[in-house]
């Protein structure tokens, strides 16, 4: 069991809760157990709500599923739609997609990457990075960033908008569209739509390069801090092409160990249950998946930007590959595991996605009108996997002869990162809180580690809602010692 996961005598300790964690998507809380000297004995990330999507999707017709499941999330609905539709392509019996259909799905997916990563980096994370982890919390938000760094805030807003416009052109709506349907896509792209997207793409690439430079300069101001903050060396996983290049839309599973050595490679994602196993712990609604061959203790892994750009052999676009190499050079030949490198890797991925969008817009196939694949034999079970903005996303369905879904298993990115986030906040607790008086700024260090993973807590347990923060300090007798709230 991980250090700091379970205290030996919790009844003697006082409990501090960060409830809920803010500037993340969904509901979550962190509990800390401390003794009288403020030594930390237990740190846990909890996901506090339960929605049960896997259950209520049962009985529904399979063609509804790609549209229904994207309601799991308002930030990356496209990822859920595409993971589900990749499974339903097979269930409905369709053969390989037409080139136009696959490219339109990819275009939508890269638009999703740009907008979701932009929301995360600029709106949710940049207040900590630019204003300071323990800066005045009343200003530590995107409005505060807009006041002090108006150009950066503007670029963040417009990058997000660009990604959403790409989604709208393919899916019909910015959020919760219907572009991908079993067998292909439902709408061809017009020349006017293509031209509108092409007009601004170079600007988006330029702004992203600027943001990467900014993060690099930030790192140079205090490399010792950024290198080790929340550092937790774990295995890493992602979807790769046969040549080892990272592929957000389709590929096979690769996992590497903390030093970058291969654990498994080119595993067909339909066989995910042969390499991954989910564990249930009594204190969390969220499951803990791990690599089967390594066991529960050592098999935990990270997914998402930092994991997959380091697990990959390379990125298949030139500018992003250069930036990936510059970031990885800081590890002196080994992967970097500082939690805040997630932000850097995330920006590299925006750049990669933007370059892919540019290439697709220059591809004549993107204006094609052959949208649907040929239909063959129905199937009754299928798995769809995609690299969502936050990491590898699994959708697994069984459908009966009457077209009803009878089984649904979703392993979302945040669930894959469950143990990794717990490890990161335990490291932060040891590094910054252990033995010290708990303050709002120090508690925000814990939130910063969670935020770096960009968890989608509503996906992970299928929760919904908004999140004011309340921190309660309870003394050893179980009495409320002090309370701190922010809206």
């Amino acid at each position, binding site marked *: 069991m991980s250090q700091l996961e379970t205290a030996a005598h919790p009844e003697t300790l006082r409990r501090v809760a960060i409830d809920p964690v803010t500037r993340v998507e969904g509901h979550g809380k962190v509990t800390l157990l401390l003794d009288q000297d403020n030594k930390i004995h237990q740190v846990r990330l909890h996901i506090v709500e339960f929605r049960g999507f896997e259950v209520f999707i049962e009985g529904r017709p399979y063609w*509804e599923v790609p549209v229904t499941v994207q309601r799991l999330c308002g930030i990356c609905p496209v990822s859920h739609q595409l993971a589900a539709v990749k499974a339903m392509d097979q269930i409905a019996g369709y053969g390989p997609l037409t080139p136009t259909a696959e490219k339109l799905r990819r275009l939508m997916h890269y638009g999703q990457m740009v907008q979701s990563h932009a929301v995360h980096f600029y709106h949710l994370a940049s207040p900590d990075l630019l204003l300071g982890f323990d800066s005045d919390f009343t200003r530590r938000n995107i409005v505060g960033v807009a006041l002090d760094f108006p150009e950066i805030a503007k670029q963040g807003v417009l990058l997000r908008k660009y990604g959403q416009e790409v989604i709208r052109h393919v899916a019909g709506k910015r959020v919760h569209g219907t572009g991908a349907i079993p067998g292909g896509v439902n709408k061809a792209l017009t020349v006017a739509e293509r031209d509108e997207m092409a007009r601004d793409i170079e600007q988006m690439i330029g702004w992203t390069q600027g943001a990467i430079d900014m993060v690099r300069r930030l790192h140079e101001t205090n490399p010792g801090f950024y290198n080790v903050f929340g550092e937790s060396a774990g295995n890493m996983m992602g979807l790769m092409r046969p040549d080892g290049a990272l592929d957000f839309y389709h590929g096979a599973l690769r996992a590497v160990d903390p030093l970058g050595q291969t654990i498994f490679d080119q595993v067909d994602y339909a066989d995910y249950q042969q390499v991954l196993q989910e564990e249930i712990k009594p204190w969390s609604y969220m499951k803990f998946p791990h690599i089967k061959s390594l066991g529960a203790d050592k098999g935990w892994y990270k997914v998402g930007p930092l994991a997959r750009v380091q697990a990959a052999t390379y990125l298949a676009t030139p500018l992003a590959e250069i930036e990936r190499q510059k970031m990885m050079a800081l590890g002196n030949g080994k992967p970097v595991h500082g939690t805040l490198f997630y932000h850097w890797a995330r920006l590299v991925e925006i750049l990669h996605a933007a370059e892919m969008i540019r290439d697709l817009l220059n591809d004549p196939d993107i204006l094609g009108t052959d949208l649907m694949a040929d239909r063959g034999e129905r199937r009754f079970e299928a798995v769809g996997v995609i690299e969502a903005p936050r990491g590898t996303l699994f959708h697994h369905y069984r459908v009966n002869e009457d077209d009803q879904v009878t089984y649904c298993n979703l392993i979302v990115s945040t669930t894959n990162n469950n143990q990794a986030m717990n490890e990161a906040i335990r490291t932060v607790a040891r590094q910054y809180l252990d033995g010290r008086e708990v303050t709002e700024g120090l508690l925000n260090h814990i939130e910063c580690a969670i935020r770096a993973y960009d968890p989608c807590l509503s996906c992970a347990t299928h929760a919904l809602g908004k999140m004011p923060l309340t921190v309660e300090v309870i003394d050893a007798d179980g009495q409320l010692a002090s309370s701190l709230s922010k809206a």
Partner: protein
Amino acid sequence: MSETSNANSFSIDGQRIPFTPGQTILQAALAAGVYIPHLCHHPELKPHGSCKLCTVIVNGRNGSACTQMAMPGIEVENNSPTLNDRRRVLLQMLFVEGNHFCPGCEKSGNCQLQALAYDLEMLAPHFRHAYPVRPIDTTHPDVWLDLNRCIMCELCVRASRDIDGKNVFALAGRGVDSHIVVNSPSGRLGDSALSIDDAAVHVCPVGAIMVKRVGYAVPIGERQFDEQPISRQVDYLATRHIPIVPVAATEER
């Protein structure tokens, strides 16, 4: 106003509406380009008068525009705040007594219930959701029957009886227990005489009777009520035909 024109016309909200003898108020209104909200009416089927959305005030008395005959000189109140408030309440009751989840419904954008709710600016359900437990019948090879979304307009009952000549559907039970039943030895759709090219399959104004394996083939933005609110689609409402989809076309999807 001359006697001749008065003999062949009446007024809706002060507007003169010509009619031919035998027309209902709703038929005359739609033919004249005047919108009266409705759900259970279809131009190719006999009037039914069950949904009450088209209730108007005729010479001071409530009446269903779809069943009440147009008469010379009557004065009809239609598009008034009082009547639209009542219609909104009727819609709210329809929404809460079924399980209508637009986000995942294939009918979204083509659904008359949804279109009316948008048009009458129904912003919230107002009443507590009943969340009834209603069955789904998936046994037919080509047709999906989801009673969660049924509003019991009986358009399928009439289409099956009067156009298809099959009597596949009927309304059973009383009051809150009313529900659509299927005429087959087992009570299941798969054992009934229903065929995919029956009018009854394609007349449903909501997402209760759906052709199987068709999911969002028509993109958002190109659906019937995407471009214009239903109240501005009077020509469509007056002249629409039940769109019989041939078997071959659905298998293409």
